[in-house]
Structure formats: structure tokens, C-alpha cells
């Protein structure tokens, strides 16, 4: 059970990557699907990293796409400059890709730090406001900066589509490894403690501002990585692509997947990215807006359903977990004693005391008892 709980998502994503990498290398994967997988990988990185801030830290960021924008522009630009200086082509060069990923992540993280510094010291919804403002600032700056191509957008280095989605999914695994291990560590407990009750967390000695700042910076860094991937997956990047709507779309993924659930975010990100590619084929022209309408309704309905105090009883009675347990978990049978059940005819505390004290003095009848306890795993 522990394996399933902890490593299932790595296994599934790893297996998926290997299968499709083989398909791609043997030339059996069409370019449109490779592009779709690239987009899925980008969305997963974005959703998981935003989920860290929204679902686990309990702060709202409305500028995730703008951090992505910073990563895409600066990472792409620096990679291009370095490639030009070395006299090599920036495309299809693995080293340049790694370099731009690192630079993109660093730039986005720096922005996250600078933005988080004023906002995260304060209690309340200031992060939402400041990230919103940051989004506008980024949009204005990149639209007007001629060296970045202005509103027309900037051409970006390319990478062979056969391999790019594999790299994307490897980065997803890296993201998962970092974020999941962070959350399972002592620091992760601190982060969720801040979400649940900031004052109580502060009282137990957690440095709230430091944790918030670290988490937000980390999340921005991953947004920057996603941005670099985005710049490699598309021919050019424009500031208008990374607008408010994109940030909201990422938020929809997080909310749809369930706040505070990494696997949920992954599934929702893949699902919404797939729908985003397929729905425009069905909903053409004026109907295209139905998609946004749909997302808005999902967002409102899910949040009200999951949080409304009046619906608490209903939620507890009818939820996916109960439904799952009803089908897959056998009913409790009182006649069957579970292996790990405590036995009350012997008093286990005495044995534990013995073990803890590890004294050499063993009282005779105690020895019998401990032998008895040792066998209780057997079928009696």
C-alpha cells in the first residue's frame, strides 16, 4: 500500500514516457500527438507547482502564467545569446536546452522572490493582488521591449519534436520528485500547518514568512521551467499568450483536481489540456466561448460544493472515497480478527516497557507472555 501511495504517479508517468518514447523513436507517433504530449507535460508542471501554493500553502497566485512568461522570454533569450556567442545553432542542442531551463527557472524564481517579499509578509489576500499586478507589469514590459520582439513575439530555439516531449515528461518527474519529497518532509508538515492555521503554526515556532517565501519561489521556478519548455514547443512566444486567462486556466486545473492533491492536479491538467486541443475542433466560431463558460461554471460549482458549510453533511455522506470503499473494500466482519489487532488477554504494555527499558532482569512469567505475543501474527 505504501508503494502505491508514494510511487504510483512516478511509475505511471515513467511507463507512459517509455512507451511513447519508443513509439516516437521508431517513428510511429504523429507530430500532432507529440505536440499534445508536450503541452500535457507543460500543464502538469504548471498545475503541480501552482497546486503547491494554492492547495498546500493556502495562498492564491493569479500570475502563474506571468512567471512562465518570464522563464520563456529570459531563458529563451539567454540561450539564444549564448548559442550565438559560441557560434552554434541554438536548436537541437541539449546543452543549450538545459542551460536555458536553468536560467529560465532562476529568473522566474528571482521574480517570485521579489514579488513574494512584500506580499507574503502580510496576512490575507495580498498575494493575489500583487501577482495580478505583476502579470500586468510583465505583459506591458515584454510588449514594449523591442529587444524581445515587442507585441509581435520573439522567435525561440527549437528542439526535435521526437524528443522534446520525453524531456518534458522527465521534467515532470523531476518536479514531482522535488515537490512530493518536500511535502513529505518535516518542511512539508510545516507548510500544511501554515495553511491550516497560520497563528498556531507561528506559535509552534514555524517561521511562516520564510516558508511561504521559499514555497512561492520554488513554485515560480517550476513555472519558469514550464515557460522554457513552452518556448521550445512553439515557434514564437507573445506576451498576450501568458495573460490572466492562462493563469485562470491553471487554477481551474488545480481546483478541478482537488486542492491539496498532487495526483488530482496531474489528472486534471492532462484532461483539460486534451480538451483544450480537441474542443476547438467541435466548438468553432462563436461557440468557442462555451469552453470558457464551462470552466467558469466548473470553478464555481466545485468550490461551492467542496467548501460550503451548509453542504458539509451531504459531502461526508456522498463522496468519491465512500463510493470507492463501498465497492472495493470488503465490509467489516467482526468474526474475523485482523492480524494486527491487539489482543487483550495479554497486556502488551508490559512487553513494550521491557523492550524500551531493555533491562536484563526478566521475570519468569513475563518471558512466556512475550513469546506468546511474538506468535500472534499466526493464525489462531
Amino acid at each position: 500500500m505504501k508503494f502505491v501511495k508514494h510511487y504510483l504517479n512516478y511509475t505511471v508517468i515513467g511507463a507512459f514516457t517509455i512507451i511513447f518514447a519508443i513509439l516516437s523513436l521508431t517513428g510511429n507517433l504523429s507530430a500532432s500527438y507529440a505536440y499534445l504530449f508536450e503541452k500535457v507535460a507543460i500543464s502538469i508542471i504548471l498545475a503541480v507547482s501552482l497546486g503547491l501554493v494554492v492547495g498546500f500553502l493556502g495562498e492564491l497566485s493569479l500570475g502563474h502564467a506571468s512567471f512562465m512568461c518570464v522563464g520563456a522570454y529570459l531563458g529563451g533569450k539567454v540561450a539564444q545569446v549564448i548559442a550565438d556567442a559560441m557560434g552554434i545553432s541554438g536548436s537541437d542542442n541539449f546543452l543549450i536546452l538545459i542551460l536555458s531551463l536553468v536560467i529560465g527557472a532562476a529568473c522566474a524564481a528571482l521574480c517570485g522572490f521579489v514579488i513574494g517579499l512584500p506580499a507574503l509578509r502580510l496576512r490575507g489576500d495580498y498575494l493575489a493582488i500583487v501577482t495580478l499586478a505583476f502579470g500586468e507589469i510583465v505583459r506591458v514590459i515584454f510588449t514594449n521591449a523591442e529587444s524581445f520582439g515587442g507585441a509581435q513575439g520573439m522567435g525561440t530555439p527549437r528542439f526535435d519534436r521526437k524528443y522534446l516531449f520525453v524531456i518534458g515528461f522527465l521534467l515532470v518527474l523531476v518536479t514531482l520528485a522535488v515537490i512530493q519529497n518536500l511535502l513529505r518532509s518535516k518542511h512539508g508538515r510545516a507548510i500544511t500547518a501554515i495553511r491550516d492555521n497560520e497563528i498556531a503554526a507561528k506559535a509552534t515556532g514555524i517561521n511562516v514568512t520564510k516558508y511561504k517565501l521559499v514555497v512561492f519561489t520554488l513554485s515560480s521556478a517550476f513555472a519558469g521551467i514550464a515557460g522554457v519548455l513552452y518556448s521550445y514547443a512553439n515557434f514564437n512566444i507573445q506576451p498576450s499568450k501568458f495573460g490572466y486567462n492562462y493563469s485562470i486556466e491553471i487554477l481551474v486545473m488545480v481546483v478541478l483536481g482537488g486542492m491539496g492533491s498532487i495526483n488530482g492536479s496531474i489528472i486534471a491538467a492532462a484532461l483539460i489540456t486534451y480538451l483544450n486541443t480537441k474542443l476547438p475542433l467541435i466548438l468553432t466560431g462563436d461557440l468557442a466561448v462555451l469552453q470558457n463558460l464551462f470552466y467558469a461554471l466548473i470553478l464555481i460549482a466545485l468550490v461551492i460544493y467542496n467548501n460550503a458549510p451548509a453542504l458539509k453533511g451531504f459531502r461526508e455522506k456522498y463522496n468519491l472515497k465512500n463510493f470507492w470503499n463501498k465497492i472495493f473494500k470488503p465490509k467489516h466482519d467482526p468474526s474475523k480478527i485482523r492480524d494486527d489487532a491487539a489482543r487483550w488477554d495479554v497486556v502488551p504494555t508490559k512487553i513494550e516497557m521491557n523492550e524500551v527499558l531493555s533491562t536484563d532482569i526478566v521475570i519468569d512469567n513475563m518471558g512466556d507472555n512475550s513469546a506468546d505475543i511474538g506468535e500472534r501474527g499466526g493464525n489462531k
Partner: protein
Amino acid sequence: MNFITNLIGGLSLGGIYAMIALGYTMVYGIAKMLNFAHGDIIMVGGYTILVFTARSVHPIIAIILSVIFCVALGISVEKVAYKPLRGSSPLAVLITAIGVSYLLQSLAQMIFGSGTKMVQGLDLGSFSIGSLKIGVSTVVTLIACFMVMIALNLFVKYTRIGRAMVAVSEDKGAAQLMGINVNFIIMITFAIGSALAALAGTFYLMRSPSMYSTFGSLPGIKAFAAAVIGGIGSIPGAMLGGILLGVVEVFAGASVLGPYTDAIEFAILIVILLVKPTGFLGKKRREKV
């Protein structure tokens, strides 16, 4: 001369921002939530005016109808989307508000299409004093905004409902014990905020008569910044912040920094939060367990 034109323009734009910011700040003070959908109420007001003026209804009547429609919309949004979440986490309310904003934008885009539409009949012409050429709408906006603000201040200070609003924003529980109907007060707050948003939308349309589905977003976000700069929750603060931002916008727009105007305004917000997190006139609230 240019300076005076800019100053008048800035003050009138600031007045518009202040009116929108009042909606944000009152809702924040009383319901303790950021109403992200406020900017889209402005947009709905604008479209209402568009619909009625296109059917050659007199502009004044169109404005009144738009105010009524926005008030109804504001109240129903509050009842449907925000009221069920009262008492749950602030994050949930915030996300719902964003959902509502997104919903209104999508609906507007669905009904009116994504193109830009021009609103007729709001152009009041201009007059000149010496070499100074001033739009009538600028002056009307300026006067109307200041009148609205004075009226609002008097309302909050001297009427029963206004005092009740202050009481609810100070301490909701105690206000309830004193026999104030908190739900009713919150409803009234949303109604006033929406009415102000509709008026602000009208004045904004007088400046530039083009209507589109994200019409309210940018003024909404800027007014929001204004509310935070002035100190969120404080009514004079919202006025001060709005006017400051309006003046900055007009002067920056007229200078070399023109294209970066929006970035400058939001940079001011970030700097203010860094230096004085409560804003100019905001009160520091003590945290309680």
C-alpha cells in the same frame, strides 16, 4: 496649460477609479472578501447602456436602467455564489469570485460577440476657456464623482444603515448581537458597490466609447490597486488611492514613459505594499486566534 488639462483629466479619471475602488473597499470591509467580479459588473453596466442606447432610449434613462440592472446582478451574485461560502476559508471565496468574473466575461462574449462595439449618445462635446480645451464629459465626471463620494460619506456617517455598515465592518459578531441583520447589510453593500460600478462604467464610456467583453478588467484591477494603496477597508483611502492613480496614469501617459503607464501604476502598488502594507489610510488590525 498642458499641465492643467492633464490635471483635470487625471482628477476625473481618478474619480472613476475611486468610485470603483469604493465598491472593492466596502465589500472588503464588510464581507471580508475580495470581490474579483467587481470589474465585470462595470462591463455588464456598459453593455446595458449599449443595448438601450442602440434602441434609442434617452441616455439618462439608459444610465438609470444600467444602475438598476447592475444592482440586481450584484445582489444575485452575492446570494448565489458568495453567501453559501460564508464562514468557509477565504481562499474558497476568492476562487469563486474569480469564477464569477470569468463567467460574466464569457457570457458577455457569448451574447455580444468578441468584437468591439461603439456606444452612441454619450459624447457631450467640449468647451474651451482661452486656449484650454476641456471635454464636457470630463467636468461632468469630476463633479459627479465628488458628489457621489460626499453622498456616500454622509450616508455612512448619518444614516441607520450606514452606521450598521460601520458596525458590521468593525465586529460582525457584536453587530449581530446588537440586532443588526448582517446578511441584509452585506446585501446593501453589494448593491451600493454595484451601483457605483455601473456609474463608473458610464463615465468610463464617456472617455472612450468602445465596449468589449474585458472592458471592466483593466479599470477593475487598477481600482483594486487604488483601494489597496489607499488602505483596503477604508472609504477615504479608496478615494485618495483612486485619485492618486488616475493622476499618475494621465501624467505618465503624457510623458516619455507612455507605453509603460500600466506597469508604473502596478509598480507603485508593489512599492506601497513593501513600505506601508496597510496602505495610506488603512488601519492595522490585530490578529486574533
